[in-house]
């Protein structure tokens, strides 16, 4: 009578692939080109970029989980609205938590936490994955995509902060005495602080990634 289903292990090769693929060959930013706006906006300094990456990861993971749990009950006609409500609720929660516990960073992120709602990665993962998969793989997929997004954010913000402000994670790495103001020869690159430079950096990362992984190049 009772049929024992063979249970897939939690960290099977298939599930691990969900975690690692979005970091490289299915990266949401550099391959799928989703979530670009926030990648341009919050990467001036590493710390806000890191908090943003964590926030997005939490929201993708849990919205994937919740939608996957509800996937058999959601009326098809309003499924986009249901997804949006779940995402919006999670984003508001994250925003409130940031305001309460990391106020300085939440001030720097200002509107961009709220704008996670419009981040295409979220809706994309819900539609493409969570609606058709079990809760655990969906959760892992969310974490993976959050990681892929966060990695790119950190790489971009590393270069923007280093070249634009001469600091890394808020710590000064280029000595004050090198600066023109103090009689030196060095000056920060003001372009790095502005969003267009982030777009150029994303372009460079895409270029490097595709030259190393030829499969990604479209015909």
């Amino acid at each position, binding site marked *: 009578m009772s049929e024992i289903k063979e249970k897939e292990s939690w960290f099977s090769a298939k599930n691990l692939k969900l975690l690692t693929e979005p970091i490289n060959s299915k990266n949401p930013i550099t391959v799928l080109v989703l979530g670009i706006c926030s990648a341009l906006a919050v990467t*001036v300094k590493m710390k806000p970029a890191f908090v943003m990456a964590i926030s997005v990861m939490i929201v993708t993971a849990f919205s994937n989980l919740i939608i996957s749990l509800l996937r058999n*009950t959601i*009326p098809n006609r309003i499924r986009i609205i249901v997804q949006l*409500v779940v995402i919006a609720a999670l984003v508001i*929660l994250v925003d409130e938590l940031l305001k*309460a516990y990391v106020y300085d960073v939440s001030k720097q992120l200002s509107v961009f936490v709220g704008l996670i709602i419009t981040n295409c990665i979220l809706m994309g993962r819900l539609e493409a994955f969570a609606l058709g998969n079990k809760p655990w793989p969906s959760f892992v997929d969310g974490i993976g995509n959050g990681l892929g997004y966060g990695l790119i954010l950190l790489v971009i913000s590393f270069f923007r902060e280093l070249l634009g402000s001469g600091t890394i994670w808020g710590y000064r790495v280029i000595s004050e005495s090198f600066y023109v103001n103090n009689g030196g020869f060095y000056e920060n690159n*003001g372009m790095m*602080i*502005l969003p267009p430079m982030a777009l150029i950096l994303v372009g460079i990362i895409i270029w490097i990634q595709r030259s190393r992984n030829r499969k990604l190049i479209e015909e």
Partner: protein
Amino acid sequence: MIMGILDNLRKMDRNSNLYTFLYASGMVILVAALLAIAATSLKPAQQKNKETEKKIDILKSLGKADGVETASNKHKFVEDAFNKYIAEMFVVNSKGDKVEGVDAFSIDLKAEFAKPLEQRNLPIYKATLDDQSVKYIIPLRGRGLWGPIWGYISLNDDFNTIYGATFAHQSETPGLGAEINTAEFQKQFVGKSIFDVNNKFVSIAVVKGGADKSDPHGVDAISGGTLTSKGLEAMIKDCLSSYETYFNNQKNKNHE
């Protein structure tokens, strides 16, 4: 009973209007309740952060905010310093009389400056420093290029010479207008005076292309941040001029 309802729901046609309607309503109520609980329970912590930030700004205008970033307990550090230096907070009106029964710290400047001059409640923070000198801190609020800017100016007890100033902004352009919150820019205000030799209120001019070093009422504008500089100049003038009568009254008292 609840189980019964759930059971009926499970048997319903997932594409029927009723099911869709019930599903949407249930979800909205649930989410609304959840968010309301979260917002209420986190409110005290958020309020505390805002208060601490305001106190840091006030301390900055006195040059007493060093060490805040490295303090192990930021709230306590700020609270202690604030209680130590800020001797008194009070509210005056545009005629220079004290207004009783209004909490100076919780006044919303944006709302006050939207009112006509006669009805404004104007907060003042009176500070006593280590050497027993008395400073008066005036809060400022105005508009920059992209959003609100605000700040605090501390005056010596002659109600004329600026002891220190601090400015902050919400969304000015990084590297340009946003420079108003750098120490280099704020340092310029120290020692400037807001009344001229004939005791006429002149405020501080933010001069494009650089102010004359000997000019007691001018500071250099930010290159590339003209509109923010203009907003800052207007903010200082508008806010300080509301206190003009109070300043004059106090000066006359000092002379007597």
